[in-house]
């Protein structure tokens, strides 16, 4: 009788031991197995995000409750920027006017509305006046009317003034210099007063679909996943927000929009979008140098004639000597040694710019990608269950460098198109999610389209041997004289990611060292952006293949991501073994600019949204 008992006990012991082994060894075991499966032995594992390594096949997630709480709204808006908020406000205005009940929910990844907003900015108040005619009485922060408008072509030491004749796109008469973050925050307050449910700190991480393939809504991000991809004790699933129609206003190069383009083939009849990166700083300057209302733009130095870009410097008038300045570089640049951040820092030393900053103090820094594709790159805007608004599809007027007024108008048009459908007596729709093609038609008939059509050839006209100068001549003739009525539409050159030349064909650029008074190093700049993320979460800069950065990006292009990231997220560091390099991703530094997703020559980087509330803490940028 002893023997069977002994066997049973041994059996149970062995099973217990196995369980312990799995529990404690699993993280490393899984990693080792997986390492062999998907990357070369010498590539350490970088990406742990569940979008690349699904959780249903991951033993660490066995038994974890994955059910999500769901709630219903009439409209869900992704993104609390000018477009999303304008759409929300317009919807509620219509609902109140027609005495209908409408539940509008808006989710925003920033911890408060306006904290991820970054823009120059010179606002054209047309759309705002259409949306809220009494914005002045309501205290909208448009405090600085433009009083002076200056345009220059810079050379290394000199400046060639360019007269801004009336009718040229960069004329700013009637516009306001604004701190866009403050305007967005004000729009958020207006939206809340009208009854919009705003949820900052919650990122839309997933698009949900009905069985018929139409968009059902979104799910917010899960929280409590550890850096290695395993669940923490405080793991909580995100929430599902279902809606009859979902508006996607994620801003330039949104990550959900990227998925929607593929799912619904929205880009089959348009050009690929082209982009630029904008870096910005706020400075408190010497009062003697302060000229409130002054707008300065420049092109030329330090960029060569074939690299699109330029600078802005705006003197705000809000009671203190504050200037907003920055630099934009087209992401179709070809030299992998170019660093937009360092071009910005060295531009500040130009004899025309430096005097304004001498004796001043830098108080903020940030960066964001922006669209340059114009109307050639606008995708199909509607699909069953959803619409794209704002800079996400991309309505920026590139020569004016203004996209806020068109973004807001697109949000308002979206609201006006969906309202009658939502409140109609019978829900007339083939699909479970509403399809609202009227939005795209109304946009084509609005001033947004007229404006974008007139300037459609200006940006592409830079792709000629004379670069910048060819473009300016083209603008002078065809825009200023002929108002954009020429019968042809120029094309872009392909995607920005494909424009980089291999490193061996290019010359490294010698950038001057930052002097710590006017120009600064990258890390102290990143600190000023206030960016932070929960450290113990999978990096949200995901790689489809962990081995490509060293093999291709570093091997052929000398690791351009080390230079184009304005936050120092990507670093190539030597391997612990001593021979070879590895990519280190400092995800906590990320300022959510999206440049890496755009410019990676291997298109291996896929930016996904981190835990909501993380990212920069811009204050009135």
């Amino acid at each position, binding site marked *: 009788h002893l023997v069977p008992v002994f066997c049973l006990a041994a059996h149970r012991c062995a099973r217990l031991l196995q369980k312990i082994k799995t529990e404690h060894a699993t993280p490393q075991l899984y990693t080792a197995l997986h390492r062999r499966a998907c990357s070369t032995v010498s590539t350490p594992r970088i990406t742990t995000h569940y979008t690349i390594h699904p959780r249903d096949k991951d033993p660490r997630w066995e038994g974890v409750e994955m059910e999500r*709480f769901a*709630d219903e709204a009439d409209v869900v808006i992704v993104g609390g920027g000018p477009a999303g908020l304008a759409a929300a406000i317009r919807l509620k205005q219509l609902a109140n006017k027609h005495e209908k009940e409408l539940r509008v929910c808006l*989710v925003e990844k920033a*911890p*408060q509305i*306006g*904290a991820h907003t970054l823009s120059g900015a010179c606002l054209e108040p047309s759309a705002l006046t259409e949306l809220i005619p009494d914005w002045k009485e309501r205290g909208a922060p448009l405090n600085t009317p433009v009083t002076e408008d200056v345009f220059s072509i810079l050379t290394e030491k000199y400046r060639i003034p360019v007269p801004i004749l009336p009718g040229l796109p960069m004329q700013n008469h009637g516009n306001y210099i604004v701190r866009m*973050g*403050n305007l967005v*925050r004000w729009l958020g307050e207006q939206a809340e007063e009208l009854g919009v*449910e705003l*949820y900052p700190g*919650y990122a839309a991480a997933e698009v949900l679909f009905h069985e018929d393939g139409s968009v059902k809504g979104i799910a*917010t991000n899960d*929280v*409590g996943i550890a850096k290695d991809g395993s669940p923490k*004790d*405080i793991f*909580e699933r*995100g*929430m599902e927000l279902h809606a009859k129609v979902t508006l996607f206003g994620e801003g330039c190069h949104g990550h959900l929009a990227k998925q929607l383009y593929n799912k619904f083939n929205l880009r089959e009849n348009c050009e690929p979008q082209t982009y630029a990166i904008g870096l910005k700083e706020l400075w408190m300057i010497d009062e003697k140098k302060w000229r409130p209302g002054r707008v300065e733009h420049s092109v030329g130095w330090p960029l060569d004639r074939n690299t699109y870009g330029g600078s802005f410097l705006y003197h705000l008038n809000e009671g*203190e000597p504050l200037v907003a300045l920055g630099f934009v570089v087209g992401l179709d640049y070809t030299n992998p040694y170019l660093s937009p951040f360092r071009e910005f820092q060295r531009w500040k030393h130009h004899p025309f710019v430096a005097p304004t900053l001498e004796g001043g103090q830098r*108080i*903020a820094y940030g960066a964001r990608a922006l669209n340059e594709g114009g109307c050639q790159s606008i995708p199909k805007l509607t699909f069953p269950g959803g619409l794209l608004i704002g800079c996400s599809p991309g309505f920026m007027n590139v020569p004016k460098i203004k996209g806020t007024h068109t973004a807001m108008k697109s949000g308002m048009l979206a609201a006006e198109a969906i309202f009658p459908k939502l409140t109609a007596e019978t829900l007339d729709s083939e699909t479970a999610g509403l399809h609202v093609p009227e939005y795209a038609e109304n946009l084509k008939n609005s001033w947004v389209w007229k404006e974008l059509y007139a300037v459609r050839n200006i940006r592409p006209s830079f792709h000629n041997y004379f670069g910048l100068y060819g473009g300016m001549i083209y603008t002078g003739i065809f825009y200023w004289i002929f108002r954009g009525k020429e019968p042809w539409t120029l094309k872009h050159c392909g995607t920005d990611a494909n424009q980089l030349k291999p490193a061996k064909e290019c010359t490294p650029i010698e950038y001057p060292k930052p002097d710590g008074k006017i120009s600064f190093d990258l890390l102290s700049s990143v*600190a*000023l952006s*206030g960016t*932070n993320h929960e450290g113990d979460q999978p990096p949200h800069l995901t790689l489809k293949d962990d081995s490509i950065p060293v093999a291709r990006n570093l091997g052929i292009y000398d690791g351009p991501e080390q230079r184009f990231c304005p936050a120092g997220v990507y670093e190539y560091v030597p391997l612990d073994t001593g021979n070879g390099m590895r990519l280190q991703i400092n995800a906590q530094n990320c300022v959510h600019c999206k440049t890496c997703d755009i410019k990676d020559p291997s298109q291996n980087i896929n930016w996904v949204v981190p835990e909501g509330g993380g990212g920069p*803490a811009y*204050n*009135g940028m």
Partner: protein
Amino acid sequence: LSCKVLSSVVTPCYCFVSPQIRVKPDNTGVVTDGVKHSMNPFCEIAVEEAVKLKEKKLIKEVVAVSCGPQQSQETIRTALAMGADRGIHVDVSGKDYENLGPLQVSKILAALAKQEDAQLILLGKQAIDDDCNQTGQMTAALLDWPQGTFASEVSLEGDKINLVREIDGGLEHIKINTPAVITADLRLNTPRYATLPNIMKAKKKKIVTVKPADLGVDVTSRLEVLKVEEPPQRQAGMKVETVEDLVVKLKEAGRV
């Protein structure tokens, strides 16, 4: 073990959480306009502990209190989303808010504790904007209640509380009577996330607004801030080759 039902008053502090603080040009304080404000991290831990006690059925109700302007209601909402039952917003704004210090807050909390017949007050050990570490202690003194500060472990035993305190010398185990004041230290727990469904449910929970005068508390400050300035710029150091050089330099600087 008898399981006495306790109601608790927890105070989440509304303070600014931002790495980029600037001194105001007139040196009277720091710029708070537009700066991100949220719940003090130690107070989050206090709220979490209160909610945990409620989940263990050791206390009956968790009331979240915040003293500040209109926006502090958002902090209370976060506490409600974490599991508090109702909120009390003590409305203090403008100049009064800028001068609000631990003594005034303790008086407010003491008055509220009496009004609500609370048995337990849980706070964060200190606020990360002023680092005073005084409110919990002062509140206990005003109420003549025992205090368990820097708590890293809390357990209820009948009508007494067992506490482990983190002190310089190590860990101190104490037993205190209720009613009591406890201040939370970092390792007490890991606060849960305020998930979106809970934020939505929290909108339905009640927040009552009162003024300090309603509680018979005078919030005039006993302190006058003379000046606020940035810490002095760190001076460059000097390298010396030998110990003799070091002594010479120290004598030159008048340090020796």
